[in-house]
């Protein structure tokens, strides 16, 4: 099974078309292998992006350089997946 060690989910706040445009540069780039969980939207809702561990630094640098505010909503994706898996197995056992 695919593992996501070190991968994190960022919630990026975008206010207005200018910031969406800046963020879209990042999202459309193939370099960082980002997985968009919640896309940029008309109402400037936050954008959720799964960032692979190898891309954490460059993505953080980009966001900082563009003055895009973000928070890390899932700091350890694999831990969350392992917990989910454990719960499912426990339930199956029961």
């Amino acid at each position, binding site marked *: *099974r*695919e593992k*996501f060690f070190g991968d994190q*989910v960022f*919630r990026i706040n975008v206010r207005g078309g200018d910031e969406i445009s800046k963020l879209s540069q990042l999202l459309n780039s193939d370099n960082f292998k980002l*997985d*968009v*969980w*919640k*896309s*940029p*939207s*008309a*109402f400037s*809702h936050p954008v*959720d992006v*799964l960032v692979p561990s190898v891309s954490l630094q460059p993505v953080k640098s980009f966001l900082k350089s563009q003055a895009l505010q973000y928070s890390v*909503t*899932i700091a350890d994706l694999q831990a*969350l*997946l392992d*917990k*989910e898996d454990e*719960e*499912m197995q426990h*339930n*199956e056992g*029961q």
Partner: protein
Amino acid sequence: ERSNNNFNYGAYHSLEAIYHEMDNIAGEFPDLAHRLKIGHSFENRSMYVLKFGTAEGRRRPAVWLNAGIHSREWISQATAIWTARKIVSDYGKDPAITSILEKMDIFLLPVANPDGYVYTQTKNRLWRKTRSLNSRSPCIGADPNRNWNSSFAGAGTSNNPCSEVYHGPHANSEVEVKSVVDFIQQHGNFKCFIDLHSYSQLLMYPYGYTVNKAPDAEELDEVARCAAKALASLSGTKYQVGPICTTVYPASGSSTDWAYDNGIKYAFTFELRDTGHYGFLLPANQIIPTAEETWLGLKTIMEHVRDHLY
């Protein structure tokens, strides 16, 4: 076995377990629920719906509840199977669902993308698309919610098979989509289509493929606002309401737009709970609260449909 009912609605389950429980429900309530096979997936897994109905007659007005089309949105499938049990439990006790079923049938498809769902449990928890093969690319699958024949290949889709919003080679190329389309078209009397997704806490209506207002937008907006209010009444979960295109982003070839453009007036998309901490990995202890509040929204919509059959 039936009277014990060991199925834990507050947990996530395998495809096999969901299908087994659907069969259990049909077995426990033979006069109300039937499990029907409507087709198969690309990898040849059965696609089952539960039909809830109180009277014979093949063309009674009907509601379609669609879930799990994007396989990683597990709260959608989990909410659907809870809803199935809720329908049979409340019939004859709750006046609303009882009167809804006196007038209409409800068809519930808990796993609209069986191959994707199995893949999320065996290989990659974050898989979204189908698992169909692409002849010109090593990338697998199409976005089943961009594959419907409604402004197919329009805004918000991609012709790149490696994209998460790849529309597929042609409309209804995904056998999972075609199975639903064929069933609904053959039936011919659906009045309502609701698609469950996660996550964002949104209740939306057509269109996704254009910013132009749908002819029934005003009524759909009012219905959606009432449904969102009912949903919020349980735990305060706030939903935003609006047309797909201007509430989120352009999305062509979607199930909801197809339903609307094919005469199913009451067409809605739910994006379920977003706690801000889990994304698609909503913990299992949130399944029942999410399903309970969603049910209030679904019931509100179905009551409106019941009272406004056309």
